[in-house]
C-alpha cells in the first residue's frame, strides 16, 4: 500500500512530466499573474478559482486544490485566454491536462455533469464512430442530465422542420470500419497500463 503522501508525490511527478510533454507546458513558471485569462473567460464567474489562480496553485505545488477545482470542468474551450496570454501559456491545454490528471488520480471533482456528457459522447464515438445529436440527447435524458420536459417543445419543432428524425435513434448505423476505433482504444489502454 502506498501512503497518501507517496501518492501525492507520484501525482506531482506525473503532472510535472505531463507539463513537459504538452506544448509550452513549462511556461506556467513564467506566469505574470496578470489576470488576463480570468478576465477574458466567458464563464469565469462559474469557476471557483478561475484560470489565473489555478496557474498559481499549480506553480505552488498545491495539486490537490487544483484537482478538486471545478475550473477546468467549466472551460468552454474558446481559447480566448490562450491567445491573449502575455506569457504564452496555453491555458486551455493546461486545463485539459488537469482534467486528465484529475481522472487519473481518482480525486473527486465537483462536477457539472461534464463527466456524464463526456462519457456519453465518447460512448457514441466508440460505438458508432460518429455522434448523432438525437441519440446523445436521449442518452442524456436517460441520465437525468437534460430534463425531458424542457426539451419536448424544441424537439417537436425540430421534428416538424425535418431537422431531426426519430428513426436515427433506433437505427444504429455505424461507420464501416468501426473495429478501427475499437483497436485504437485497446492499443491506447494497453499503453496506458504498460
Amino acid at each position: 500500500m502506498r501512503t497518501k503522501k507517496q501518492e501525492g508525490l507520484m501525482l506531482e511527478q506525473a503532472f510535472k512530466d505531463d507539463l513537459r510533454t504538452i506544448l509550452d507546458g513549462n511556461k506556467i513558471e513564467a506566469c505574470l499573474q496578470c489576470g488576463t485569462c480570468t478576465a477574458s473567460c466567458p464563464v469565469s464567474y462559474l469557476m471557483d478559482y478561475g484560470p489565473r489562480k489555478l496557474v498559481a496553485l499549480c506553480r505552488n505545488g498545491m495539486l490537490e486544490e487544483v484537482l478538486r477545482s471545478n475550473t477546468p470542468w467549466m472551460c468552454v474551450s474558446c481559447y480566448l485566454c490562450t491567445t491573449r496570454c502575455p506569457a504564452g501559456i496555453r491555458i486551455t491545454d493546461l486545463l485539459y491536462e488537469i482534467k486528465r490528471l484529475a481522472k487519473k488520480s481518482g480525486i473527486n471533482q465537483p462536477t457539472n455533469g461534464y463527466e456524464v456528457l463526456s462519457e456519453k459522447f465518447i460512448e457514441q464515438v466508440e460505438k458508432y464512430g460518429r455522434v448523432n445529436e438525437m441519440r446523445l440527447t436521449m442518452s442524456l435524458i436517460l441520465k437525468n442530465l437534460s430534463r425531458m420536459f424542457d426539451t419536448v417543445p424544441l424537439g417537436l419543432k425540430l421534428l416538424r422542420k425535418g431537422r431531426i428524425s426519430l428513426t436515427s435513434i433506433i437505427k444504429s448505423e455505424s461507420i464501416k470500419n468501426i473495429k478501427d476505433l475499437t483497436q485504437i482504444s485497446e492499443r491506447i489502454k494497453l499503453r496506458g497500463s504498460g
Partner: protein
Amino acid sequence: MQKPYDISTRAIMKHLGADLVELEDWNCCGATFYHSVDELQALVLSARNLALAERMGNNLLTICNACYTNLLKTNMYLKKNANLNKTVNEILEKIGLSYHGSVKVRHILEVLVNDVGEQSIKEKVISPLKDFKVAPYYGCQIVRPFHIFDDPEFPTSMDRLISWIGATAVSYPLKTKCCGGMLSFLNKEACLGLIKDLLQSAVKSGAECIATCCPLCQTNLEMFQEDVNKKYNIQLSIPIVPFTQLIGLAFGLSPDEIGLKAMLVPLKKKIT
C-alpha cells in the same frame, strides 16, 4: 440537425464548380471530450481522418470550427513532436493506416474567401442580397488558438464575403465571443446569458440575421432563442443561418436546395 449547413455547403460548392468528395468512413474527432480524457486518443482519432484523406490524396475541408481546431492541432503536434508522431503512427499501423503530415486542413470559410475569391463569387451572384444587414458570427475555434487566416478576435473574412454577395456586414464586435459551446448541454442557464448578449448585440447593430460558420454555434444561437426570450422576458426573433445559405440565396439557388425551410426563425420575405 445541421443538415441545412451541410447541404447548402455542397450546393454552393457544386455551383462554383468545386469538386467535394466526402471522406470515406470518417470518424468523429471527439470534439473537446477526448482531450479531457486521453490526449493520445484524441490525436489518433483526428490522425485517422487525416490518414484517410492522405490515402485519397486530398486535402481536408471541414465546415465545423471544432473539427478544424482538432485537425490543425493534430497536424501541428505530430509535426513538432517526433516521438508522438512515431507513437501515433504505430497505432495507425495496427488499423492499416499511416500518416505523413501532407494533408492541409481547411475551413470552408477560408476556402471561399481565399481560394475561390472575390471575383469568382461575384460572378455567380445573380440575386444580390441588397439592403440586407448581416451580423457575421465566427465563433471561437475558427480563429483560436490557431489564427491561420484571420485575426484571433476580430476576423474580417466573412464580413468581406457578405459584401461580395451584395449584403452588408454590420459592425459586430462580439463576432468571436463564446456561445457557450458544449456547456449548453450542461449548464444551459449560464449559456443563455452568453447567447442573449450575442443575439441582442446583433439586433442592436441593426442586423436582420446572424450568419454562422460552425454547427455548434448554429445550434446554440438558433435552438435556444426561445429560452433566452423566456428567461430574460424579451422578444428576440432573429434568423440564425449558416453563411453558406446566404451565398446560396445570392447564387439564386432554390430554398430547398439550401435547406432554408428547415430554419427555426425564417429569413425575411424580401430576400427569399
